[in-house]
């Protein structure tokens, strides 16, 4: 063996020992469940760290039968003039009944990617929220919740079903 291959061998052995030794020091993750090899070692994150949860303690549900749902055009999050009256009725109610509030649920039809439809549903809910605020409703009494395409009101697969599923629902609490 010449000098070069000795060096080669030395570094290989060194590398292996460093890997093995440092591997021993790493605490094995207790939460690991799936797959065979742990590429990066260690737990992903420490379970003790609070990652600023701020939607805990908000009202979870409300009465969905008090007001009509606002309908939306395909791929649009704009509240159409002919639907505006439905939002105004909710604003009137909330402005009168202090202490009450609303969860605005945004929904979409089944076409398109589920994750994109989640953001579209949220934009629909936010558009309704903005309109409610412009009508004097206290922002802290309005929550938005997008359900994307996950909870259709009509289980069909035609234009009619899709039109009924693109909606903003008011859950009053």
């Amino acid at each position, binding site marked *: 063996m010449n000098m070069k291959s000795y060096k*080669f061998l030395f*570094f*290989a052995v060194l*590398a*292996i020992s*460093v*890997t093995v030794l*440092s591997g021993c020091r790493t605490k094995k*993750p*207790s*939460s*690991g*469940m*799936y*797959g*065979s*090899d*742990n*590429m*990066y*070692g260690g737990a*992903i*994150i*420490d*379970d003790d*760290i*609070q*990652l*600023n*949860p*701020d*939607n*805990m303690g*908000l009202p*979870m*549900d409300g009465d969905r039968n008090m007001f009509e749902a606002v309908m939306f055009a395909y791929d649009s999050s704009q509240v159409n003039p002919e639907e505006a009256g439905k939002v105004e009725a909710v604003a009137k109610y909330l402005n009168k009944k202090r202490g009450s509030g609303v969860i605005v649920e945004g929904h979409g039809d089944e076409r*398109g*990617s*589920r*994750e*994109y439809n*989640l*953001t*579209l549903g*949220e*934009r629909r809910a*936010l558009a309704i929220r903005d309109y409610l605020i412009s009508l004097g409703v206290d922002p802290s009494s309005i*929550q*938005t*919740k*997008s*359900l*994307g395409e*996950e*909870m259709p009101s009509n289980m069909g*697969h035609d234009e009619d079903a899709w039109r009924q599923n693109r909606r903003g629902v008011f859950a009053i609490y």
Partner: protein
Amino acid sequence: MRRVFLMGCVALVSAGAFAQRVEVRKSGESKITINLGSYRVGGDVASKTFLSVLKTDLSRSGYFKVISSGGELNVAGSCVSAGTSLKADCHLYKGSTRQRLLGKTYKTTTADARGLAHRVADEILYAATGKKGMASGKIALVSNRTGRKELYVCDIDGKNIRQITKDRSIVVGPGWAPDGKNIIYTSYKRGYPNVYLTGRGKPLSSHGGLNASGAISPDGKSLAVILSRDGNPELYLKSLRTGRLTRLTNTRRGNEASPCWSPDGNHIAYVSDTSGKPQIYIMPRSGGRAQRLTSSGSESVSPNWGRNGYIVYSSRIGGRYRIAMVNPVAKSMRVLETDWADYEDPSWAPDGRHIICSRTASYRSSIYLLDTLKDSPVALLTGSVDWYSPACSP
């Protein structure tokens, strides 16, 4: 530092072993013949399962043609069970020179016969070609088979299905943590859409409004996530150490969705509809100007950045969703050949050659394996319920 050493080791080992390997022909035009005709198994179910799964895995890898006499490679050995333990000897020889490429004895339980076959298949592929296999990979996915949308995990051949969540809520868009062990997903189990990680009770992200499409960086330190806390769905980066938030996009007139990380963790690809239709953009992880990646197709959604460097995504072309892949450096794009159905939510298999995706026909979703070279698609999970949003383990 440790990872650099580790990579050094792998490089040294690979360099040493390379000389012995069998030449792999280009793009599956012809395959390496591998003879398993002389491999002996006992009369029990576990060892028979081991051999049949091993043959399927080798064949499905795309690099081998499994035969029972002659051949360029020969697998000798035996698999036997005693009680609940299973033992397999595997010796891989070059047919011409009798040179041994792999010789190992594996021990496991009879219940793990399939798992052992997957491991051996990947080791045979590596010994013969130097390529990483996919057989040991896992798929995280969603199904409505209980009537609720719960999270499941199965092996990459669609078998060994386990239900992970029992929240009776809605699970959306699962993905793997870089450790390949835990799964990040969006769930409504506490009323609002929050981002969760398996094995951890508290949500990773639970701001007011939408928390969705969480993706953990390759180093495990950051979370790319879509939040609407500032009044519009935008892409954010969240430190998983400190919880500190950095907003990466500011598109009052648009939506962002589906972030995924580049293999080196320096860039994020994501969907934005600021142009009027959802298309894929790339941004440095430190923020800055977004670069539009896709322009063809009326929609380009659900990007997944493979360790092979290619971004695979779903593109709406001529009214149906097809699987496309793009090299973000050369910008060269290719659409995979598929039938008339809708193909969505692609995810690179760990071998960097195959893609797992959903196929929707007659409003029913199933899970398919596609080959980016020449082999035919394989149905992995089908039936009378929906299986969708598959994500392959790294």
